[in-house]
């Protein structure tokens, strides 16, 4: 009787071991680096300083006006 009880206890413990809940720690969204920090490759546009947010924003504003505002390019307002 004791042996049967012992065997059933061990079997139950073995079978139930699969029911344990493993911790799920999803990493979440990785941190992103702001674009004004620049890139370390040959495609970077000159004319602004990497890491300087103001110079990056100013460079983009100038670029927008130069490339996308044809009224500014032709001088007609």
């Amino acid at each position, binding site marked *: 009787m004791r042996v049967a009880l012992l065997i059933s206890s061990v079997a139950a413990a073995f079978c139930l071991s699969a029911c344990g809940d493993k911790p799920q720690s999803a*990493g979440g*969204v990785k941190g992103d*680096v702001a674009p004004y920090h*620049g890139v370390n490759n040959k495609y*970077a546009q000159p004319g602004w300083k990497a890491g300087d947010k103001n110079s990056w924003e100013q460079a*983009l504003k100038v670029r927008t006006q130069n490339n996308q505002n044809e009224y500014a390019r032709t001088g007609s307002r």
Partner: protein
Amino acid sequence: MARMKFICDAERCIECNGCVTACKAEHDVPWGVNRRRVVTLNDGVPGERSISVACMHCSDAPCMAVCPVNCFYRTDEGVVLHDKDVCIGCGYCSYACPFGAPQFPSTGTFGLRGKMDKCTFCAGGPEANGSEAEFEKYGRNRLAEGKLPICAEMCSTKALLGGDGDVVADIFRNRVLQRGKGAEVWGWGTAYGSKQAGQPPAGVKS
């Protein structure tokens, strides 16, 4: 602080699909996926209008609201991006997006795990700026290179404007004043929540 936005001028778009082609080439987007596309209303009918559509990087993005795994984030520049390592490809964002921006490729670099793919405003994603990993998952990071989205910069008629919202709105406003019509900015109110933006000043007919 710069808040990046797109404006598509339906008076100017000639449905050339240059923006679509430029986007695909710049980011090496696989076959079957278009991060940007051109939609023509009343095609073939006099007065037809075309608009270039992609993720508008909404101020209050519905895709962010419905994502069950919170894979989206908004940068300080107002660009809505997502982490493909967190995305489970469930497709909820596709149903929520009013612009049909989320794409679900099934083959190629982006599609091996069924991750969602969309326009990044040429701002890459949560990998090192300009790295190979960033390019493989999200495409080029032109913003970090000091450039603007290739679709807007390549637009032959300058129908598509992309950049700091204040600057592109000024360019568009000046254009509307010059031509005296066509002040409606398709999708602007839906994306950025302002029905006033892009409207002509009092006295100008649209």
